[in-house]
């Protein structure tokens, strides 16, 4: 987190005093971008830097499924499990991916290539079922298109 402090200071200057808790989300996001995940020590450091209770950082981390508390594989597959995607077959897709990758949601393949996750709504109901592959959306999924996708990834 240390390397980001200068950036966080600049961010803080843009917010009125007393709104430190509003900075939790953007700061966590930058930490995750830098490290790939949010480590336990980051929580304490960020809470101390912002002067907010650590529980406020924990609340944000546990609410947003997008935050990761552990390192992920090279390819992070985040499959939406909310209403629209479920109705269009997301549950079957998760089962399909589990079988193909040999890991349950939340786990990483032993070779470190893939991490499978299920997440809350990605806001892509119009193209359900959808998943996020790292920072990219992959939409209108079918078992066949998922297989094709896995073929492309090294």
């Amino acid at each position, binding site marked *: 987190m240390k390397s980001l402090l200068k950036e966080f200071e600049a961010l803080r200057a843009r917010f009125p005093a007393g709104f430190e808790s509003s900075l939790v989300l953007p700061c966590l996001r930058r930490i995750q971008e830098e490290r790939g995940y949010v480590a336990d020590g980051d929580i304490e450091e960020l809470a101390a830097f912002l002067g907010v*209770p*650590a*529980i*406020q950082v*924990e*609340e944000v981390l*546990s*609410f*947003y*499924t997008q935050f990761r508390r552990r390192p992920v594989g090279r390819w992070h597959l985040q499959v939406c499990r909310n209403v629209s995607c479920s109705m269009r077959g997301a549950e079957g897709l998760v089962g399909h991916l589990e079988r193909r990758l040999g890991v349950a949601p939340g786990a990483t393949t032993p070779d470190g290539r893939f991490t499978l996750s299920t997440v*809350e709504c990605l806001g892509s109901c119009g193209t359900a079922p959808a998943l996020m592959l790292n920072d990219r959306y992959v939409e209108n999924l079918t078992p066949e298109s998922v297989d094709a996708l896995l073929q492309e990834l090294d």
Partner: protein
Amino acid sequence: MPEILINGQKFEAEAGQTVLEAARAAGIFVPTFCWHPQLSTAGNCRMCLVEVEGRGLDIACNMPVSAGMRVLTDSPEVRAHRRAILQFITLNHPVDCGICDKAGECSLQDYHYAYNGEASISAEPKVRSTKYYNLSSRILLDNERCILCLRCTRFTHEISKSMALGVESRGDVSVIRPVADRPLGDDPYSDNIVDLCPVGALQSRQFLHKTRVWYLEPTPSVCPGCARGCSVNIWHRKPEWHVKTLDPAQNQSIARVTPLENPAVNGPWICNKGRDLARIFERRRATEPMLQGSPVALETALERARELIGAARHPLALVSNWGSNEELDAFQRSLGAVFTAYVKSDSVPQPGERLEDELLIRADKNPNSAAARALYADAPARLPEGTDLVLVWGEGCDFGALPRGARLIFLNAYLAPENGHADVFLPTSVQTERDGHYTNFQGVISGFHACFAKPSGALDAEALFRSLAAPARVHA
């Protein structure tokens, strides 16, 4: 002053008020779970839904009034939605009222009977969660009963400022959790969250499975724990529910203490010390008058005391600042002319006790110092030499510092080794056994009432002072 219509009736609302506040001010009840007048608006329970004609349904707690607004708090539409909200709120609630301490004073129970009354229409299995979760040495949490209104977290963030609670995770697996580095046990106001909880999720360990609340009734009282003098309710068994077969001491004991809302003194809160009044009042009691440790009849003890008072040249009294205004007045009227009187502090801060803060707690751990000091000065560190009689009223006296050779008359409610050393010992009543008033540090006078009978042998100090003032009989 915007004029609004609630259920067809015109009311003057105050600018900046919410519809909920305006309705409550007008005496119209709108049910709420998460809203509390002293906490920020969370708007998460949706129970206070009202209909605004032309605008549809919205929550009253977060809706500012505007002129000409037409609000309906009980339209068919509102009733239908309340029923639906209650279905959602009880979706994962275990409905274990039969073994829940909150039953009988639970908002969820009351609203269910008032606004829904139907069994759950859900066929899904309920989400299981932690029960008897240890929040502190005083409070247990049942996450299955919790409806996530967040009153408790807001209390620790906004009122007690301990920041001791937060919410982890999201959706139906959200749970209230304590903060590792800020234990709830360090928050001297923590027990207020048990009262705040609109359901039975937060449970007082003291009160856990002790009794059903409908066997109890409250007696208004004043907490003697510090000079704030918070108004409290002391809960005890109703006379018609006195137990006959179990331990009858239950009929004479404090079941729990809760705040009695008093905007002039404590608002709706009290500190944890106020919850523990049983620790003060239910210590072992002195019930026998004694002369130098030998039990005697009351009249014998009084007569001996009158003799000592009559014979003394320089009598001195250490007056209790736990005495009520009435008792202090009785002392002043009956014995004020005889004794040189000083105020003694009955109680001093205990190790680990919070000394003082900005919310309620005061450094003076006595309830009536203000009234006592209005009559007498504080006792000097060294009492005047030549004093030949000391009357000590109440606890907290350093007997070693009394003038040597002086006779001692001691009035105390509790068993103590010093009782037997007094020339005359007289047992007194405690606050829960008599009516009276205390004057707090701000000069606010609050009254307390008797809820238990005096143990036989104990006397009210007020009566004692009057009988001590009667002239001693002359021995032939």
